[in-house]
């Protein structure tokens, strides 16, 4: 997918660069400057495998001034080392149930109630539902599409029926507040306009 991302950057910028010559000199200067840089950098990334070694290293080097992973590791190692030293010299702590329970390093603590497990399918379906929500909002109006989206998401994520109903009602109330308080035209969509103009 990274190539799709790069193609989006380069394609959009190429169009912007060419089109910038249609504007007045002052109006075209900035988009030409930014899009030219995006094109050059994008091409460097696309052809990174074929670049000379020094340039390739610069393009692909992901070292950061502050590498968070490295910092986490460093903090973990500090804690582990000190804990090991303590275990060697003093075992009395292990007799305490609380200490035994918390004795392992944080990284090793079992039962991480919240350890995230990557499930890309969830992201993919949520993205699809967002696009469907956008289309439904345009066709029938956001006021009605909002609870439908919430129902679709909660049903897919396997929530209990009362959670589904509760969240759907809450989302409708939320959408209604936008409609009523902010006077947003979200109660009707394209289908309503089509019915009024073509059918009725």
């Amino acid at each position, binding site marked *: 997918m990274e190539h799709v991302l790069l193609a989006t950057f380069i394609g959009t910028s190429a169009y912007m660069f060419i089109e910038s010559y249609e504007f007045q000199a*002052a109006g075209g200067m900035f988009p030409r400057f930014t899009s030219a840089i995006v094109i050059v950098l994008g091409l460097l990334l696309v052809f990174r495998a074929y670049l000379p070694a020094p340039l390739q290293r610069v393009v692909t080097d992901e070292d950061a001034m*502050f590498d968070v992973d490295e910092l986490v590791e460093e903090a973990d190692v500090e804690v582990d080392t000190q804990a090991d030293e303590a275990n060697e010299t003093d075992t009395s*702590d292990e007799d305490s149930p609380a200490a035994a329970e918390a004795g392992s390093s944080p990284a090793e603590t079992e039962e991480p109630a919240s350890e995230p497990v990557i*499930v890309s399918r969830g992201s993919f379906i949520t993205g699809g539902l967002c696009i469907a929500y956008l289309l439904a909002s345009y066709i029938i109006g956001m006021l009605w599409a909002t609870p439908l989206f919430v129902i679709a998401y909660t049903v897919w994520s396997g929530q209990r029926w009362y959670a589904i109903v509760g969240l759907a009602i809450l989302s409708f109330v939320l959408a209604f507040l936008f409609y009523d308080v902010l006077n947003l035209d979200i109660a009707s969509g394209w289908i309503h306009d089509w019915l009024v103009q073509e059918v009725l």
Partner: protein
Amino acid sequence: MSFAVFVEAIGVVLSWPVAFWLLAGMLIGIIVGSLPGLGASLGMAILLPLTLALDGISAIILLISIYSGAMYGGSISAILVNAPGTSAAAATTFDGYPMSRQGQAVTALSLSATSSALAGFLTVAVLIIASPVLITVVRWFGSPEYFLIAILGLAMITIVAQGAMVKGLIAGFFGLSLTTIGSAPMTADVRYTFGQFALFDGVSFVAALIGLFAIAEMLKLAGERGGISRGEVRMGGDVLPAVKSVLNHPVTLLKSAFIGMGIGAIPGAGSTVSNFVAYTEAVRSADDSSTFGKGNEVGVIASEASNNGTIGGSVVPAIAFGIPGSAATAVLIGGLIMHGLVPGPELFDADANLVVTYSVFIALLLGNIVILLVGLGLVTRAGYLTRIDTKYIIPMIIALAFLGAFALRSGNWFDVVTIVALGIMGYYMKRYNYSIIAFVLGVVLGSIAEENLYRSVVLSRRVDFPIDLPISIFFVRPLSLLLLVGIVAIILGPIIRPYLDR
């Protein structure tokens, strides 16, 4: 003059309804901060469209209070369920969670509230004391310098944050490119609109922020499992001994707070970095370092003092130069611009908006008192927050994002398309290590950078320079030249360094 403005700002922050928004922001911040997967930037981005109904000062104080509250809130789930609500509280899990398992959850939460509040208070107090110097420095900057500092900020973010520098730069410049859609700021050109009237005003940076921080985050969260407490959390321990413990460790508190402040001021570094640096330093310098990772109170103090200390540091480049120190300050800059408050000299001019800047500082100062009161007062109830399933939150946040985006310009469908498109793009950018903060910086600062570049080109015509260059002004002003050298050094540094090492 500045002192009179400072006194005026105190009156503003304590007046109705500003004080209400300060309190509301802190509470919202604590809640969004405590829910794993959400956090300050998302909370701020999602509420950004709703602040349109507020006056500028109320809106900015609401946003900055969410930021401050979320920094503390992140520790609640870190301590109770070993899942930091924000990455800024990640190191708090090391000792906070073991304390919780030893039946000392109330003590750990009280340590967190006290150290967060005191560190936040001290760093903001220093910021206020140092503000006259800051005002003087900001006044040295003109249009050429502001254009160059935007580029310098982008370059710095790309070397400070994770991911290849080239990826960071491409993200930042693509963000800048997107802002060229619509009417040009200095000419009559209407650019890249395909004749669509909805595009004449360009890409709304608020919609971009919502897409990048709300939709992209929700897509990421939907791909993860967990984040809530599966069982009862035993709320044992005492409040007062914890407060005393913080006061008994003034060196750790001060050191961690100012590590946070210093790192917070570096564009792109943020509170996650300061959190681990401060924690590691606390372990390194402790006499009883063997107890770290087993529920050492000093570990919680160091971690929590550093992340709230970061706030004071990160607002400086944000307000003074429009360069975000973190994702949350990027949204704050968006909020400032949305309410007509452009980061830079205007926010430091006693006759213009200095009162807003001081109000932000004072709100941060008072916000720490709220953290202390809420943190210590409701500490035994904090467990409720960890029982909210993120699967309930995702559809509601997405719905709010859609409704908020549609409300931005009273029913512009292009804004809704923007949040979906940039949400999906942001998700993949994160996945492949393209800097989101650099992208946001580009989107937020694009039009300001373009205006400053245009003015610099106009000013260059009046400059006596041996070569006919449209940007000769950059070479004749000492500060511009210094910034230019800085940009070149940052970009070429990684290329030249191996040769210098040899």
